[in-house]
């Protein structure tokens, strides 16, 4: 005996299906995405393929490449060929720059998280009107010119900058403290550059926090600290991961900050890569270095995708 009864859920499914059918009436719509895909495909994806190819070629003496297969670019990353007996010698110079950049990026991410989380939480717990102002105030530096913002840091920490002038005037020091062109300057610049990249995704995750859970925790005699560590932080994990990624990836590949605040003495990966295309005149090596950076980024992205339900979040 078969009784075909339509439950309410079936009915809403049918309605949904009908809506879907209208929605898809113009199936040709998918062709509309072609211009964007072609532009990004030709001028965005193809160039990446080209640097993959270039990384297996030989450097031309005045920049550019010679069409001759070679794995020297990758070998040169870690080894240097001895001029006399043609043996490979381990040279960790590039590796050290990669490790330094990694360290810079990790420290930047951690400090941004320590400062950004309380800020984002404070923003998310303001009344709605006030909240909008806070978001705008963090959004402005997010989109402001990075070069100019880095310049602002440079003006402050120079030998004749505001900090040194103030300390000299107060008689705390009798000669300026060198801060510009040091590791400290790069670290400070990275923090300054990427702090908003941490706050915004954290905020968008904390804004949706269900405070009834916090209330329940207090009802069960949790202390403030317990509520923070065992309720609020675990619930905002997607925002924390997104924020860390949005800081870590650009910090790892930072170019402007070490260029201006490191003064070409303290290099990061970004400057190293650019150097191979400029004074270094070794394009294949630069391409190989770029691809190794890309691999690191892909590892970070894989970690992100695995930890979120495939939903793309954006500050």
């Amino acid at each position: 005996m078969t009784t075909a009864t339509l439950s309410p859920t079936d009915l809403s499914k049918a309605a949904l299906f009908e809506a879907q059918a209208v929605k898809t009436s113009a199936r040709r719509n998918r062709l509309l995405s072609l211009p964007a895909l072609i532009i990004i495909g030709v001028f965005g994806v193809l160039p990446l393929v080209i640097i993959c190819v270039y990384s297996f070629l030989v450097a031309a003496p005045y920049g550019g490449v010679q069409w001759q297969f070679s794995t020297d670019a990758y070998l040169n990353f870690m080894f240097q060929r001895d001029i006399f007996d043609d043996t490979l010698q381990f040279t960790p110079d590039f590796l050290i720059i990669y490790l330094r950049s990694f360290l810079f990026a990790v420290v930047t991410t951690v400090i941004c998280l320590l400062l950004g989380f309380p800020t984002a939480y404070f923003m998310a717990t303001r009344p709605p009107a006030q909240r909008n102002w806070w978001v705008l105030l963090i959004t402005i530096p997010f989109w402001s010119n990075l070069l100019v913002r880095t310049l602002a840091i440079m003006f402050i920490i120079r030998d004749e900058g505001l900090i040194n002038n103030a300390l000299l005037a107060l008689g705390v020091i009798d000669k300026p403290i060198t801060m510009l062109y040091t590791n400290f300057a790069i670290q400070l610049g990275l923090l300054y550059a990427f702090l908003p990249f941490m706050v915004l995704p954290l905020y968008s995750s904390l804004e949706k926090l269900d405070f009834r859970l916090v209330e329940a925790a207090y009802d069960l005699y949790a202390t403030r600290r317990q509520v923070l560590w065992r309720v609020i932080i675990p619930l905002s994990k997607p925002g924390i991961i997104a924020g860390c990624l949005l800081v870590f990836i650009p910090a790892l590949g930072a170019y402007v900050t070490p260029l201006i605040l490191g003064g070409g003495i303290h290099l990061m990966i970004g400057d190293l890569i650019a150097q191979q295309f400029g004074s270094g005149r070794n394009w294949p090596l630069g391409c190989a270095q770029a691809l190794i950076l890309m691999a690191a980024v892909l590892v970070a992205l894989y970690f992100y995708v695995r930890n979120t339900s495939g939903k793309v979040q954006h500050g």
Partner: protein
Amino acid sequence: MAEPRVMDIKDQPGFRTIAIICLLVLYVPVLILMVFSLNSGSLVTHWEGVTLGWYGTAFLNEEFHAAARNTLIISVTATIVSTICATLAAIGMTRVKPWRGLAAAFMVINLPLMVPEIITAVATLSFFALIAGAFGLNFGIGNLILAHTVFCIPFAYMPIRARLEDMDLTLENAAADLYATPWNAFKRITLPLLVPGIMSGAALAFIVSFDDFTITQLVAGPGQTTLPLYIWNQIRRPMTPEINAISTILLLVSILFVSVSFLIARRRAK
């Protein structure tokens, strides 16, 4: 016993202080840079008095003119092209039955956001060097416009797509029920509702193009100096507050466009 009678459950001790410190850290350096653009002395660090003279110096500077012209040509063209492409793509990816390759297409659109800028920069440089070498093709300033369009597309795409997804489909369905052709339904219903998203996307595309330094620096040929490149060239010479004045102009343009984009998005949310 010492518990206050009414406890705010949302409160966490010390968070307010950290939030205020964050704001100060973000704004004080930039504000100092802006204030020194009004310095009547010729040093970027010693305050002598108020003047608008450095803005005058900048506006009379031929190099600044050329840089401003290049920047506007590049960012306006890149904004228009990328916003049109992004709008079409957003419709093609939300108002259709999920098609095979949709996820891949979404990844391609967002690719410029995931690749570190320096990699995009050297890749684009290699690409244009290759087509210049192999086919003798050089689009001049068009090289920069194309490079900018690529990374502007995802920025324009995000708010437009968000707007399309939030939109109430009943209006479009009603139009279809009343025998509107798909084109008419789009022109009379979807497009007017989509305008805030498009404007917000265009504002973001304009900012990222206007401010770009890394990609522009590597791809730009001789005579293609943009405003950020002009600032970079100035940093390496003895500096005067003229650099502060130009930096301030750049910051104000960013602030204007962010605020516009932000306000449009907020009004939508209400």
